[in-house]
């Protein structure tokens, strides 16, 4: 067929991008070449709008073994081990088909991790849905949670944490971000390189079908609209069983017994065979020749174009040493998997592909990788509207704080997530020390005294009001969640979910978020080692609230020192570390009770956060803390309630709080979301030692009450039976979802 600029436009390319293609090839591209360019230059694969900004992030540090640029980042955790982790979005596919979209999202991030030789040990996920009452929400939640569970449970990787939030801003564009962490010997990390002229390129895993052709360019990179229906590529269906076989076979191949046969390995994710071969050749500074006729196919009538662009799941591309083909074939045969030689490495710096003897692709690789377009898109701060101001004195103070507290604990964003994580296998692997339900998940590192703690955090309401401060706050909350679990923050991954980069105000939000991410990570000394950018989260022109999801990983030198958030013993002193301020801007209370999203965000001082974290960790090391819980959404009252009710098997102890410093409005005291606060409980005799530690770090410490009985009493404001609180909090999500119509 004749290729024209129109064909390029249909592929989601722009006219001058097409001009660049002709220049790079010095001729008109073939349809296959055009397809390859369109996916490799899509926002999803090329990061053309974000690359310039991402360069500013701190990515180095003493523990960093692999920063951004490979399939995932890697940090040295000592004892000869490294943790490999990354977070990925699968937003649009999950909106089209929630169950399969979410499931294949999990499958994809798992491949990113074991591609590097690491055995996945933990999955987390960050989810955003529309308003809980929106007719489609219940259906989407059910599908997404079901799909995540289906894939993770079946492949046998524990799903140990995450977050879920509801906001009408996501009514037509939900977010599904999946995080996986794996473990590997620090000297056994594999990289995706194609090297050694003549080395065979092997294809392993599922056969290739027409799944998700142009998924990368259409679904992940173009805004959603009514006729997405028609544009929609065949939905990818996940096969976790095949991926389990693939996982075991690949890890066996990368084990000392076989790894000498392997040169490089790369999963086939977005843009499938094309991006994996291009990236491997790109990183290896080599070239690749493919014979597409040798690719195992699932359907008849597939064209070379289809084969190059298919996004069929559960496939990997290997480069092995010449002569190792049979060994590799045998190894995969043990797992009932086919392995086919489909090409070989060259030194041409070109990607060449033939189909039934005909040359269909012959293009230089550089323009596809480093040579891809980089856009410095205009960024403009939206004009501040005064509606965003919050005047406290115009805000009526409630009378009955018992009711308000229950109302908050029942609200979709604060109620128990048990209905969600009950559907996830949190035990498999045998190392889950802290399961979902506390500030961070803690997973023991096999064969060591150590453990990793993981958390995903982002408060998109804050990011909407102020993307810079909002992002700094998300990083700080993540760090607090880790510290409260007894872990020292060591590294960050992130998933930046935004609207269309072609909108200056979205680009501004993005720029601000990146700056916040940079500043906060510098302050905490946590390098950003991996991440993902998801633009075009829009429907009918409306952008989602900026949602930079922060995935932070922490390390416990001694797993025995992990801490959970619920109270442990009658008579323990309850201590507040940090200061309460009269801040209600952007709070859950303001949104749920007063239906307002506005105000100046709580003030945040990264130095205070750092000192708070240091003192909590110090106290943990000395074994002083019986419980620790970070104060975030819902403020102090909600956090205290959580300390009483979140233990899975009880006992659910009450709290008597009478020393809470007033001097500010009661609602701000109870529900304000000031940063820099962690509630801990300690045995009375340890109070003096804790005070010394707090003083040394110059952290404000107040003994606000004690663990007592079975009621939660806060000053003369709140007095409720713990059982009532737990009741209302626990079943709320299920009730709310059952209440809404569904599909």
């Amino acid at each position: 067929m004749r290729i024209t600029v129109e064909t390029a436009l249909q592929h989601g390319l722009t006219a001058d991008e097409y001009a660049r293609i002709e220049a790079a090839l010095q001729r008109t591209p073939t349809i296959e070449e055009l397809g390859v360019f369109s996916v490799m230059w899509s926002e999803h694969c090329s990061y053309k709008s974000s690359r310039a900004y991402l360069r500013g992030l701190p990515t180095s540090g003493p523990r960093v073994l692999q920063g951004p640029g490979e399939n995932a980042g890697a940090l040295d955790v000592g004892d000869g081990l490294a943790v490999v982790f990354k977070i990925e979005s699968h937003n649009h596919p999950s909106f089209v088909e929630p169950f399969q979209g979410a499931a294949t999202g999990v499958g994809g991030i798992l491949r990113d991790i074991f591609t590097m030789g690491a055995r996945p040990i933990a999955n987390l996920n960050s989810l955003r849905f529309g308003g809980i009452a929106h007719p489609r929400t219940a259906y989407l939640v059910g599908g997404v949670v079901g799909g995540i569970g289906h894939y993770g449970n079946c492949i046998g990787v524990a799903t140990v944490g995450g977050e879920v939030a509801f906001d009408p801003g996501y009514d037509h564009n939900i977010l599904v971000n999946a995080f996986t962490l794996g473990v590997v010997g620090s000297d056994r990390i594999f990289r995706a390189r194609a090297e050694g002229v003549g080395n065979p390129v092997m294809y392993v895993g599922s056969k290739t079908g027409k799944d998700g052709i142009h998924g990368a360019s259409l679904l992940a990179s173009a805004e959603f609209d009514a006729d997405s229906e028609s544009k929609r590529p065949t939905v990818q269906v996940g096969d976790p069983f095949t991926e389990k076989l693939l996982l075991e076979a690949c890890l066996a191949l990368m084990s000392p017994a076989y790894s000498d046969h392997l040169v490089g390995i790369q999963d086939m994710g977005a843009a499938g065979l094309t991006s994996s071969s291009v990236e491997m050749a790109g990183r290896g500074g080599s070239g690749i020749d493919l014979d597409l006729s040798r690719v195992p196919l699932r359907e008849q009538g597939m064209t070379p174009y289809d084969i190059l662009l298919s996004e069929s799941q559960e496939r990997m591309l290997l480069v092995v040493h010449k002569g190792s083909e049979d060994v590799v074939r045998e190894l995969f045969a043990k797992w009932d998997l086919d392995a086919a030689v489909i090409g070989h490495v060259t030194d041409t710096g070109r990607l060449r592909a033939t189909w039934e003897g005909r040359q269909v692709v012959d293009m230089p690789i550089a323009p596809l990788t480093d040579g891809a377009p980089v856009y410095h898109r205009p960024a403009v701060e939206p004009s501040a509207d005064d509606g965003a101001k919050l005047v406290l004195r115009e805000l009526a103070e409630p009378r009955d704080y018992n009711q308000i507290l229950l109302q908050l604990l029942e609200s979709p964003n604060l109620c128990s997530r048990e209905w969600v994580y009950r559907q996830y296998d949190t035990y498999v692997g045998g190392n889950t020390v802290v399961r979902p339900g506390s500030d961070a998940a803690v997973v023991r590192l096999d064969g060591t005294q150590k453990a990793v703690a993981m958390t995903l955090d982002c408060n998109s309401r804050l990011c909407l009001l102020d993307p810079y401060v909002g992002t700094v706050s998300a990083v700080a909350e993540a760090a607090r969640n880790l510290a409260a679990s007894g872990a020292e923050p060591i590294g960050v991954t992130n998933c930046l979910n935004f609207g269309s980069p072609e909108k200056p105000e979205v680009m501004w939000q993005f720029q601000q978020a990146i700056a916040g991410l940079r500043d906060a990570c510098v302050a905490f000394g946590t390098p950003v080692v991996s991440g993902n950018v998801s633009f075009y989260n829009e429907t009918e022109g409306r952008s989602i609230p900026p949602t930079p999801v922060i995935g932070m990983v922490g390390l416990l030198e001694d797993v025995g020192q992990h801490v959970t958030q619920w109270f442990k013993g009658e008579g323990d002193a309850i201590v507040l570390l940090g200061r309460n301020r009269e801040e209600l801007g952007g709070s859950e209370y303001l949104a749920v009770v007063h239906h307002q999203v506005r105000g100046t965000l709580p003030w945040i001082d990264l130095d205070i956060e750092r000192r708070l974290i240091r003192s909590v960790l110090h106290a943990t090391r000395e074994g002083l803390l019986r419980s620790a819980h970070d104060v975030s959404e819902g403020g102090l009252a909600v956090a205290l309630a959580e300390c009483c009710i979140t233990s899975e098997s009880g006992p659910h102890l009450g709290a008597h709080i009478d020393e809470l410093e007033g001097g500010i409005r009661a609602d701000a005291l109870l529900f304000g979301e000031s940063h820099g606060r962690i509630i801990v409980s300690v045995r009375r005799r340890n109070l003096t030692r804790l005070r010394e530690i707090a003083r040394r770090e110059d952290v404000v410490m107040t003994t606000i009450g004690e663990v007592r009985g079975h009621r939660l009493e806060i000053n003369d404001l709140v007095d409720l039976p713990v059982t009532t609180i737990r009741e209302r909090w626990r079943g709320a999500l299920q009730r709310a979802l059952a209440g809404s119509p569904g599909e």
Partner: protein
Amino acid sequence: MRWGVITFPGSNDDVQAAYVLEHLLGESVVRLWHKDTALDGLDCVVLPGGFSYGDYLRCGAMARFSPIMRAVSEFAAAGRVVIGICNGFQILCEAGLLPGALVRNRDLAFICGRAHVRVEDAETMFTNRCRRGDVLDIPIKHGEGCYVADDATIRSLEAQRQIVLRYADAEGRVTQEANPNGSCSGIAGIRNARGNVFGMMPHPEHACERLVGGEDGRKFFLSVIAAGGMVSDPIASKVVSGP
């Protein structure tokens, strides 16, 4: 004792079962591949949890035809000990080594959490370290854990004291609320009439360390070790036929 732990394609808790037996209980363990065909020199084989063959079609339906299953049947017929946990239980039912079947949970969703199970019979080789009526706290994690069988089968299970575990609340009351998946008469674990084949949905291998999952699960393995892998059950040994 010499234990064998089978790995089917899709098994997930095989590693954990082997870890518990070998590292926590100091037993000798042989890892078996589903394509193996012999169980020579073993006293007990464990069919672990997981998603053999992806749980496609029906849980355990395809694993039941793995080459090693012929050996497992002969092993059981010879009176040797066979334990199926979760997916392993499902496989044993599909293979006809245990009566009944395990179907979709009452609420149609996968459930992961802690469950209390009441020991219905402490005179079995799998529970001799417990007392009748003991309530154990053990993780469950399954989507198809609802035990079903026709009334006649349930009656004979009762009659021959083949019901080993029932879901209960913390106080040991067997109630609908305490039944996580809708299993008939709250059944969480059964044995065959002869008393040498045992299947349970909860995961004892995930309850053998205080740090992760608690320690109540040890009792099952310690019971088998105490029984030395021999059918020690007074009444069961009188019964001749299989399930």
